[in-house]
C-alpha cells in the first residue's frame, strides 16, 4: 500500500492571553509548540484585560510563528494547511490570529481551516494518547467554559451539559480573590487546598432542575463568600486552607458526578478531560479514581497541554482538514462560537 503523504498543520491560537503557534503532523505528532504567555502583565490588573491582550498579540505573533516553524525544522512551503482559532474568545484577541493566519494562507496559497477553541482543548487528548478515538465522553473545564460533551466522531460534538452561570475556572478566580490569593486563582487554590481539609465546610452541590447534566457554580461561590462574611461578623479566624479545600472539593464533586452519570447512562467506556482547569490536581485524581472504580478508561492531557496552546488547534485543525473543512479569506472571529457549530 502506498504511504499517504504526511499532513502538516501550522496552527495559530490567540483567543485569550496566550499567543501561540505550533506545527502538528497528522493530528497527533507535535513538531513544535510555542506559547508566549502574557500572564505577568494581566496579573497587574487582577485578570485578563482584553485590549492589552490584543496589543500584546500583535507584538508577539510573528516571532512566535517563526519560532514554531524553526523548532519544527520546516518552512511554510512544507506546511499543508493553516489552522487558526476563530472562536470562542475575546474578539479583539481572536482577530489578530485570524488576520495573520488568513494572510499567511493567502500569501502561500495554502488551505485555511478555522478551529473552535474548545474543540481544540478536547483534541489535546489525541496528542498524547494514540489509542484515543471517538466515541468518548469529554469534560471541558476552563476559565470561560464548563461543558460535558459527547465526541461522537472526529469533529462531531454533542453538548450534553453546560454551566448555567459561572464557568468552573471563573468560580476559582472569584473565590481566590475573596480570600486574598490573587490571580490566577486556579493554581493558587490547587496548591493551598492540598494542605486543607476538604470536608471542613460542606458547600452545596447545585442541581439544575430538569437538566441533570448542567452545572451551576455561582451558588457554591456565593456560599463561600457568605461563609467568609459570617466569619468576619462573628470575628472568627478564617481558616483559608480548609475553606479553599472545601470549595474545591464541592466543585470537583459536581464535575465528577455528572461526568460519571453520562458515561453510565450512555454506556461509554472512555472519558477525557480538557481545558485549563483540567490541570487541577484534585480534579485529575478524583476523576481518575472514579473512572477506575467504574471500569472507565480515563484520558487527560499533561498539564502543559491543558492550558491554551496551539498544538491542540493543530490537532483539531487536522481532523477538520481531512473532513474537507475550508474557510475563505472572509473568515471572521466569532466570539460566541458554539461547540460543534460550523460558521
Amino acid at each position: 500500500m502506498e504511504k499517504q503523504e504526511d499532513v502538516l498543520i501550522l496552527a495559530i491560537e490567540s483567543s485569550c492571553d496566550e499567543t501561540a503557534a505550533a506545527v502538528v503532523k497528522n493530528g497527533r505528532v507535535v513538531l513544535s509548540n510555542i506559547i508566549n504567555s502574557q500572564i505577568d502583565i494581566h496579573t497587574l490588573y487582577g485578570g485578563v484585560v482584553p485590549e492589552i491582550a490584543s496589543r500584546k498579540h500583535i507584538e508577539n505573533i510573528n516571532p512566535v510563528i517563526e519560532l514554531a516553524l524553526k523548532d519544527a525544522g520546516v518552512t511554510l512551503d512544507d506546511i499543508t494547511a493553516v489552522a487558526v482559532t476563530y472562536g470562542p474568545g475575546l474578539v479583539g484577541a481572536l482577530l489578530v490570529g485570524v488576520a495573520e493566519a488568513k494572510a499567511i494562507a493567502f500569501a502561500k496559497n495554502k488551505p485555511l481551516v478555522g478551529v473552535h477553541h474548545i474543540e481544540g482543548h478536547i483534541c489535546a487528548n489525541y496528542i498524547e494518547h494514540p489509542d484515543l478515538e471517538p466515541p468518548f465522553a469529554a469534560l471541558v473545564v476552563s476559565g470561560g467554559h464548563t461543558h460535558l460533551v459527547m465526541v461522537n466522531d472526529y469533529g462531531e460534538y454533542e453538548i450534553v451539559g453546560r454551566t448555567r452561570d459561572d464557568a468552573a475556572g471563573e468560580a476559582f478566580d472569584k473565590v481566590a480573590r475573596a480570600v486574598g490569593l490573587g490571580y490566577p486563582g486556579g493554581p493558587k487554590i490547587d496548591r493551598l487546598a492540598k494542605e486543607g481539609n476538604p470536608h471542613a465546610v460542606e458547600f452545596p452541590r447545585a442541581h439544575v432542575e430538569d437538566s441533570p447534566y448542567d452545572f451551576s457554580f455561582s451558588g457554591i461561590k456565593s456560599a463561600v463568600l457568605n461563609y467568609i462574611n459570617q466569619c468576619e461578623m462573628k470575628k472568627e479566624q478564617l481558616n483559608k486552607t480548609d475553606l479553599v479545600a472545601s470549595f474545591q472539593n464541592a466543585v470537583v464533586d459536581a464535575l465528577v458526578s455528572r461526568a460519571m452519570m453520562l458515561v453510565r447512562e450512555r454506556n461509554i467506556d472512555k472519558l477525557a478531560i480538557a481545558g485549563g482547569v483540567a490541570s487541577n490536581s484534585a480534579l485529575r485524581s478524583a476523576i481518575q479514581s472514579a473512572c477506575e472504580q467504574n471500569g472507565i478508561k480515563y484520558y487527560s492531557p499533561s498539564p502543559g497541554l491543558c492550558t491554551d496552546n496551539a498544538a491542540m488547534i493543530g490537532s483539531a485543525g487536522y481532523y477538520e482538514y481531512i473532513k474537507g473543512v475550508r474557510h475563505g479569506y472572509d473568515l471572521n472571529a466569532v466570539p460566541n462560537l458554539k461547540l460543534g457549530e460550523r460558521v
Partner: protein
Amino acid sequence: MRILAVESSAVTASAAILTDDIMTAEYTINYKKTHSQTLLPMIAEIFKMTDTKPDDIDVIAVSVGPGSFTGLRIGVATGKGMALALGKKMAAVPTLDAMAYNLYGTDKLICSVMDARRQHLYNNIYYFDEENSLHKLRQQSLSSYEELTAELNELGKEVIFIGDGVSAAGRFFEEKLTCRYEFAPAHITTQRAASVAFLAKKQAERGELVDAAAVKPDYLRPSQAERELAEKQEAETDA
C-alpha cells in the same frame, strides 16, 4: 519595486498595489462590514484583476495609526502575516500623514482629523513647501475639540480638514473656528491605501523599511485599563 499597501484604521477598508510610479490597483470601500470580512478578499481581488502573485510583492505597507484599535490590528496583522510568509520588509506608515498626502500640493494648511470619540480627535497639522514636500508642524496628537480649535485659531492660517473627524467635530469647528477653513470633499477625505503606498515608496527610498516582527499599531492612546492603573498609581503617590 512593487508595494502592497493596506489601510484599515477607520471605517474605510482600502488596498492598493503601487508598481514603481504606477498605481496598478486601488480598491476602497466605506461600508459597515468588518475589515476582517473585507480586507483580505479585497487584496485577493486586486491581485486577481491585475495578474499579481503574492511573490511579486517587494514591500508590504500598512497604515499603522492612530485609529480604531481593532481596525488597525486587522490591517497590521494582515500585513505582518504576508510579510512573514513572503519574507519581505514592511513600511509602517502613519495614518494621518497618508491622509494629508491626499491633498498633495495645496498651499493651505492641512489638518488630518480622525474621530477618537469622547470629544477628541487624533490629529496633525501639515503643509507642503515650495518643492511640494510634506512637513508636519508638530507631532501627531490626541486633542480635544477645544484644544485643536484653539491651536488652529492661534495659527490663523487657512486650513483644509481631511478625515472622518469632520463628521464628528464639524459643527464644533463651524462655531468656534476664527480662521478660514474648508472641509475636504468626499472623494479625497477618506483614508486611501494609494497614499499609504506612495509614502511607503518614499520610506523605501530613504532606507526606512522595517522587519515585520517589529511593526505594531501606533494607538496614541493607552488602553482604558492602563489609564486607570496610571491614575490610581498617581493618586497613591500624591497621597
